[in-house]
């Protein structure tokens, strides 16, 4: 039955608007780095799980087949797991069931996204995620759904745009210390407020940028992990949930799908009081308000209370609950699936105390990473412990 699963290595490429590397090459670079950091070679790996969002970015049908040599999956059992934007955190979850089930002792998990091939802009791919009959004819964009959700969230709890902007300021600031970051910068709330309106209430600096990049981790069973390293990071809880496809029928002010996924993961990890037991969090922040929304779904803040926590500095690196110390998607960049995996990598380094300038002040022992996806619908959650 269930076995304990450890993360024993992590790797990541630069995140940039446009990279020369092909999707295979990006995958190789991240995979190789993860293997090297675990002290393993490809021969030691028994299975591979990959993650990537729509093929409409990279521009290859059955993308999971196309890139698999870059992930070292030739001759190995390979699964490409796919839950939209939630895929990044879901990729190590896929690896988790490969190892926890006893099927395999080691699993390489790689998330890759090359968004730049789509012309003129990667955003266009998101038109085709909407209902083809009832929504696409209206000229939908992904920005609509975020701005609609942000407005509803602000309305329900009386939140101000300035409070939400604090998240962008914090994350882009944190990203200055991240060597792979695309958009690290020291900015102010008024910079965010004065940035160009895109889809009100969403403004340019509320949004994470499209990027190319890849990230990877190596998972191992307890027995193997203990031979490899004195400091494994345990993947102790995983959870995932999908809500209905009818997003316009849903309460947009609260992500119940995240709550369900978090509760599944917390139960598995034996966490009863998340706010007390979790030291550090990497929730999904493709838009600044989303970090707040997700902190509430993760039960790390009461409903409508995450903005205050942020304004009070609780979520800073030296705060009581550091949130997105990596710089998040807003700062590091958002190559969709790779961005979720970046969060797993960040917790791996943070929980081992290896995060250098980004290391949080408190002694972090337990962390949670989360990603969101689809039409405001997917929650994927991973609980990690040192």
């Amino acid at each position, binding site marked *: 039955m269930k076995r304990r699963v450890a993360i024993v290595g992590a790797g990541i490429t630069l995140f940039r608007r*446009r*990279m*020369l*590397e*092909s999707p*295979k*090459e990006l995958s*190789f670079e991240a*995979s*190789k780095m993860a*293997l090297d950091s675990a002290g393993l*070679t*490809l021969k030691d790996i028994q299975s591979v799980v990959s993650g990537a969002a729509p093929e*409409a970015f990279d*521009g290859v049908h059955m993308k999971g087949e196309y890139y698999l*040599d*870059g992930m*070292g999956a*030739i001759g190995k059992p390979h699964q490409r797991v796919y839950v939209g934007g939630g895929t990044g955190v879901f990729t190590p979850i896929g690896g988790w069931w490969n190892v926890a089930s006893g099927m395999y002792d080691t699993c390489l998990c790689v998330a890759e996204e090359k968004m*730049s*091939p*789509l*012309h*003129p802009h990667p955003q*266009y*791919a998101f*038109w*085709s995620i909407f209902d*083809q*009959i009832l929504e*696409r004819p209206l000229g939908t964009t992904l920005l609509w759904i975020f701005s609609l959700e942000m407005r509803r969230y602000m309305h329900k709890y009386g939140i101000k745009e300035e409070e939400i902007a604090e998240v962008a300021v914090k994350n882009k600031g944190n990203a200055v210390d991240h060597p792979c970051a695309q958009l690290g910068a020291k900015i102010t709330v008024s910079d965010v407020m004065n940035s160009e309106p895109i889809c009100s209430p969403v403004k340019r600096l509320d949004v994470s940028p499209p990027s190319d990049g890849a990230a990877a981790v190596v998972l191992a069973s307890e027995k193997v992990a203990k031979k490899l390293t004195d400091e494994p990071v345990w993947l102790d809880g995983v959870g995932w949930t999908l809500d209905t496809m009818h997003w316009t029928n849903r309460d947009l002010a609260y992500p119940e799908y995240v709550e369900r996924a978090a509760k599944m993961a917390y139960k598995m990890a034996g966490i009863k009081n998340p706010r007390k037991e979790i030291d550090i969090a990497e929730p999904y922040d493709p838009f600044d308000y989303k970090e707040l929304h997700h902190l509430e779904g993760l039960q790390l803040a009461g409903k409508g209370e995450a903005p205050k926590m942020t304004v009070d500095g609780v979520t800073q690196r030296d705060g009581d609950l550091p949130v997105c110390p990596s710089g998040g998607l807003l700062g590091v960049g958002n190559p969709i699936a790779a961005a979720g995996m970046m969060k797993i990598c960040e917790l791996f380094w943070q929980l081992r105390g290896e995060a250098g300038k980004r290391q949080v002040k408190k002694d972090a022992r337990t962390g949670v990473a989360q990603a969101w996806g689809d039409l405001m619908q997917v929650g994927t959650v991973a609980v990690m412990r040192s």
Partner: protein
Amino acid sequence: MPILEKISQSSQARHWTDSIPLEFHYTAGVAGEKFRRELKDRGRFLASKCPKCKDSYVPARMFCPSCFVEMKETRTLEGLGYVYSYTTVNRNRTGEGSERVTLALVKFDGVKGGIVHRLTADTADKVEFGMKVVPILKNETERTGALTDIISFKQA
């Protein structure tokens, strides 16, 4: 329980017709860029050699698929290849009928990988496994470094 009310007349069934028009600008990658430059500028195929297993691969690539290590060493291939397999098709990629085209996977002695391309009509008539072939290239001024720089392969 199944759906109880169903469509019984085809005129009641609606279809929604649309497309997803996508345009891609691909880069060939770090190794692909070098392969394309070699083809464009010198009309030759670039292969990569693995420092570990010593196998070579064409087109050039960044990593050895079996050893999973970076391949930095490259070598250029003389044009002479051989037909590994071949087929004749009579439709284009959209599935519509087209003129008959004979394609071959052309491999090179001692090198893994290869290139799938058209054979000239003359060569197609005589093609057999192992036949030696050479590429017919566009003029240097017209070349872009894509495989469209090769017009076709012909018997050597």
